[in-house]
């Protein structure tokens, strides 16, 4: 008689089933996320939401409408900073802006915008460089709560010292304090900064191209994807970019292992900014 022990680790089976439930039930597709960190986040969600097993979490996900947003929160929330990696923003200012100036109108896509730190940083930078009024920004994410936070433009006040320092190091031409007012322990950013920003729900896993972009900035999002999904997302960026358009990735992300690498040239190599080739 065969021993009644699953051939795969029980937790791994539960994990796959949970991801299927998320996909079948709600069209959230995490099946091609990088497994190691996803597993860590799911374990954390399971513990903190008070379930003994991932199967129990799955049951609740399918039967209790309150569980989905809580779980999505654990699976997608990112910690970020304004002007994170100041050298990246300095490279945009010094190396990309001269090219961007040559276009009469600009479309900029921040893919995986989370709480909005990056899109506000770019909006400030573009205002400083005199490009804001010709620019349309798109800030997308799959996490609705993060999108709502981004749209509100509120950040914890205790982070502002770091943001201010980052902004200065990025070559900021104004004072960051010009753009926010402090109230109730939070910094509320100037509404005019989001006048030219469209916040919307878009998934790099399941959604398609939605416009012709001059710059796509997608930082520290691809590290959460496996190779298959990275290829899809990079293909989507390639198809979204105008010829000679720019793609900016996170400091430790690379196109080196991607089949689309040939469609891009290094533009600012050390900041992982690529340019789509003309052909």
């Amino acid at each position, binding site marked *: 008689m065969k021993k009644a022990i699953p051939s795969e680790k029980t937790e791994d089976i539960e994990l796959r089933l949970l991801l299927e439930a998320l996909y079948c039930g709600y069209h959230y597709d995490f099946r091609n996320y990088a497994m*190691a960190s996803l597993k860590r986040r799911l374990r954390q969600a399971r513990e903190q939401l008070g379930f003994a097993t991932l199967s129990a979490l799955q049951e609740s996900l399918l039967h209790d409408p309150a569980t989905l947003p809580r779980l999505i929160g654990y699976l997608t929330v990112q910690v970020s900073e304004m002007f994170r990696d100041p050298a990246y923003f300095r490279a945009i200012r010094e190396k990309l802006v001269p090219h961007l100036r040559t276009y009469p109108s600009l479309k900029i896509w921040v893919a995986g915008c989370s709480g909005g730190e990056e899109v506000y940083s770019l909006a400030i930078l573009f205002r400083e460089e005199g490009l804001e009024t010709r620019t349309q920004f798109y800030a997308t994410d799959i996490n609705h709560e993060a999108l709502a936070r981004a749209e509100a433009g509120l950040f914890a006040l205790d982070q502002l010292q770091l943001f201010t320092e980052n902004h200065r190091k990025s070559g900021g031409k104004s004072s960051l304090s010009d753009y926010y007012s402090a109230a109730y322990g939070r910094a509320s950013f100037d509404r005019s900064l989001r006048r030219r920003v469209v916040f919307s729900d878009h998934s790099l896993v399941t959604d398609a191209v939605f416009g012709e972009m001059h710059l796509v900035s997608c930082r520290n999002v691809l590290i959460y994807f496996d190779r298959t999904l990275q290829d899809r997302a990079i293909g989507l960026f390639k198809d979204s970019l105008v010829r000679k358009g720019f793609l900016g990735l996170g400091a430790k992300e690379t196109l080196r292992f991607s089949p689309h690498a040939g469609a891009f040239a290094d533009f600012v190599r050390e900041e992982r900014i690529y340019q789509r080739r003309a052909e």
Partner: protein
Amino acid sequence: MTKIPPQAVVIGASAGALEALTTILPALPADFLLPLMIVVHMPSDSPSALTELLQARCRIRVREAEDKEPLSGATAYFAPPDYHLLVEAGGHLSLSNDEPVLYSRPSIDVLFESAADAYGPAVVAIVLSGTNRDGAVGLKAVVEAGGMAIVQTPQEAFAAAMPEAAKAMCPGARVLSLRDIAAYLQKVGSQP
């Protein structure tokens, strides 16, 4: 009982890391069979100095890990500053920006737990000198998955707290001097 040969080595170190790693890594031969993944806590503004310093003394390759990089033998992959380093079941690396664990990013626990998941009994995990308790929980995960747990002899370590914490959490771990750790790795990582 058949012993499962190790397929990977994971190492965590904090204060005293340089001294410990300069004893272990230069002892490994150019044809060392296993990949080594290493987390060292350090300030985020001095990234490449450590890998450059070690590469100059080592026969194996020493480099900072890249996201989704496939693993090769005779190579030490260091977690980049301010990112967690994890290993995936397919034998490649992932980085993550998730919250620090025990105030640390990279975190030794995060690497060790991913290695326990990816390799089960086929991993060697080593906790070296350090002043905190990162690595203890991860080492326990490795032990529970059947892997080999090694702790640097605390009396010999520049900072004893981290190996002490790991030893307390994993009483069955082998406690070895740096010299003996190097000798053990030479043995498990050379051609049979």
